[in-house]
């Protein structure tokens, strides 16, 4: 019996088991400290829905051998440009949301293309280069947000100021456009049906893609480049393609996030956005070279569960806000753990 | 074996250094009172203003009946108290005193000016 349990734990991986048990204990303690479990669960689901696409965006690059996408900020920037332009054009509702996506995608493709070429030049050190390329791009765009000629009064600094505001509300445009679509509300429990449907669609497309010939070629390029090349796969082209797909999905992901969160955050806000997404993916069982849909779902749920439950439960327990510190420790601990796993030799 | 002895010796030296730095650098609170006080059945009155220098610090003016606080680090201190007499002349008293690390000192100026002992009272923490 003990052997069976041990085997199960090893298969799931110790980090997942520990975090999972921690999360369960938080759910159990919740009612005793005055937190409504239904609110907690629906909060977790809403946050899951907000973040899932961003975590999903990491899969193509992991599969193609480009490693963890610490440069996700490039996709986020494309999404931000789409969101801002959509508001500037004044389009509201689902049309506004789709306009944002429509504008974001070409930018994402462009940025992803050059980003992919860069990563091909630095094979073996993609992650560290990606990190600082991501940081620099956020700093660069911070300068741009001040200079770009947007005029909509909802977005610019008041009293004749110049440049875009730091936080721009999407209320009146496309706030909750996905969340509230066909949503279910039972007392204190809220289920964002629209967003979940949207996420499932994207997940389905990605899953289906990897089952196609092109998708398998991409996975082959990542798991064994030499063999893939011998089999006729253009490894470099697969890698660039994976980067473009990842960047596009990240652009869509930030838009899904914003419609739920309610605000567009510019300037330095996206600086560290890649890390929670990477941590969530790794928490779900992925490694630096292999990631699946299951990793995304399990990981995002566990991660967002911790982030939702810790403030409410622990704050009532020890009367102080430990959530930020716990988030830093858990997410970065996960990434360090994953980076120190033995990597199989890639030539 | 030799390596371990050296390591232990090094640690002892560092701890000793730490203690030394602590003693040398610990800031002490020194209260300077220009107040009336009764000591060993002798009444001392506060009458004049004093200019007080503790170690290398700037002058502190302590008026009649007042108390001032000065901070100074280390175990050894010197106090220079210049009493300003009503006729315009001054009287100067110099004394040295030492404090253990966790002590706070209270100096009474009238007693100091009289030349008697007991002008320094030390409170350990």
């Amino acid at each position, binding site marked *: 019996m003990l052997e069976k349990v041990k085997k199960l734990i090893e298969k799931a991986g110790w980090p997942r088991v520990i975090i999972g048990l921690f999360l369960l204990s938080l759910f159990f303690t919740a009612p005793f400290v005055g937190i409504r479990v239904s609110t907690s669960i629906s909060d977790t689901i809403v946050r899951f829905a907000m973040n899932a696409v961003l975590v999903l965006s990491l899969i193509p690059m992991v599969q193609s051998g480009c490693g963890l996408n*610490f440069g996700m900020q490039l996709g986020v920037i494309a999404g931000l440009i789409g969101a801002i332009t959509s508001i500037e054009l004044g389009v509201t509702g689902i049309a506004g949301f789709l306009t944002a996506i429509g504008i974001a995608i070409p930018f994402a493709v462009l940025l992803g293309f050059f980003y992919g070429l*860069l990563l091909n*030049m*630095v*094979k*073996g*050190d993609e*992650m*560290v*280069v990606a*990190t*600082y*390329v991501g*940081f*620099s791009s956020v*700093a*660069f765009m*911070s*300068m741009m947000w*001040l*200079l770009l000629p947007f005029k909509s009064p909802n977005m610019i600094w008041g009293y004749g100021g*110049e*440049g875009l505001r730091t936080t721009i509300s999407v209320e009146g445009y496309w706030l909750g456009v996905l969340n509230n679509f066909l949503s279910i509300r039972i007392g204190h429990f809220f289920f964002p049906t629209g967003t979940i449907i949207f996420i499932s669609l994207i997940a389905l497309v990605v899953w289906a893609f990897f089952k196609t010939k092109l998708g398998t070629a991409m996975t082959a390029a990542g798991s064994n480049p030499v063999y893939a090349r011998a089999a006729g796969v253009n490894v470099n082209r697969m890698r660039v393609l994976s980067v473009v797909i990842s960047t596009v999905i990240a652009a869509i992901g930030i838009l899904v996030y914003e419609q739920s969160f309610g605000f567009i955050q510019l*300037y*330095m806000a996206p600086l560290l956005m890649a*890390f929670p997404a990477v941590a969530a993916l790794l928490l779900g069982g992925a490694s630096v070279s292999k990631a699946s849909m299951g990793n995304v779902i399990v990981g995002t749920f566990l991660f967002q569960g911790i982030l939702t439950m810790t403030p409410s439960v622990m704050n009532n327990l020890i009367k*102080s806000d*430990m959530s*930020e*510190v*716990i988030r*830093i*420790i858990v997410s*970065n*601990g996960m*990434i*360090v753990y994953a*980076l*120190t796993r033995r*990597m199989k030799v890639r030539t | 074996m030799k390596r371990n002895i050296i390591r232990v010796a090094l640690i002892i030296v*560092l701890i000793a*250094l*730490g203690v030394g*730095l*602590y003693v*040398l*650098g*610990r*800031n002490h609170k020194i209260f300077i009172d220009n107040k009336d006080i009764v000591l060993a059945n002798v009444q001392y009155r506060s009458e004049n203003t004093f200019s007080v220098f503790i170690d290398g610090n700037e002058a502190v003016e302590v008026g009649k009946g007042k108390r001032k606080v000065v*901070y100074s*680090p280390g175990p050894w201190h010197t106090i220079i108290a210049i009493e300003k007499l009503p006729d315009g002349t001054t009287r100067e008293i110099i004394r040295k005193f030492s404090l253990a690390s966790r002590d706070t000192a209270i100096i009474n100026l009238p007693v100091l000016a009289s030349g008697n002992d007991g002008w320094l009272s030390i409170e350990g923490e």
Partner: protein
Amino acid sequence: MKEQSLTRAKNPLVRFAISNAVPILFVVLLIFAIPLSGFSSDYLINEIITRLGRNSFLVISLLIPVMAGMGLNFGIVLGAMAGQMGLIFMLDWEVVGIPGVLLAMLIGTPIAILLGLLAGTILNRAKGREMVTSIILGFFINGVYQLTILYGMGSLIPITSNKLLLPRGYGVRNALDLLTIRKVMDNMWVMKIGNISIPLGLFAIIAALCVFVVWFTRTKLGQDMRAVGQDMQVAATAGINVDRTRTLSIIISTVLACFGQIIFLQNIGTINTYNSHDQVGTFAIAALLIGGASVAKATIPNVFIGIILFHLTFIVAPRAGKELLGQAQIGEFFRVFVSYGIIAISLALYAWRRRVEKETERRRAKAAIKAAMEDKVGG
């Protein structure tokens, strides 16, 4: 394919320009930006001298890991946190002046050694990915540090001073003033030339550190580190304990960073308990790279040239941005962009060069095998 690297150009002037491209670029940038900003030369010289005194120790602490092949040690932030903890105890025990600074260093050192040991062990398990791992490890330990400072101090760790603790009784306040040790090292021995004051005492200490670093590279341990940095396989066959040498390089770097952060903070005069150490890694590394260093090679001149160029850009950018584009804020973002950008470019260049070298080696090996086989068949 062109194998001739540009650094092997014939003309020595071209060679100099190529291998020192980054510093030269910054000098050109500053030639335009400084007059634009309108700062007086006295002000700039004083500022740079202060910043040299303040930051040199931290940037020098990066040199040894580069020598040992560990790349850019983003983990110096661990040393900075150790230094801050030393300062917290120093403040709690009310030790002031130079003895206080020395005591803070004394207390911070064992913490820095432990953290360096942890970092070194983890980095050894992530060979080939040291730099990313050190970045994330820095974030992780920052989390542990915040946990300790926010909850441990005052409760499990005996800190008693009300000036340090939050009103609730445990947890350190987020801004601690260091008036009791403010500029004690700067003021140890000051020389004034006209309007410019030079903290000779501090510079003497920095010079001593440089001498130490040079001496260290000549010791057996230093040579071992060089060997490991060149080629881990060859060093291992020569009998060097590669893992232990690498870990030692990180420990030394972390301890130096601990001292460096204390020197930095005594000049600033305040500790932002939760933020002061945030950008330590980025700014020190950016400065070193701007001085012409690379991931594989960093020398003492790189340190000083880098600090001067980096900090001049830092000071001048906001005002220059205001003159040029009407908003000082652009200048502020520009200097952040420069810091991150220079690191991104250096990392990319290094990674690209490393890949090109690997491929040339592989091709050469293939050609050698082919030639050997043809010999065998022919002869």
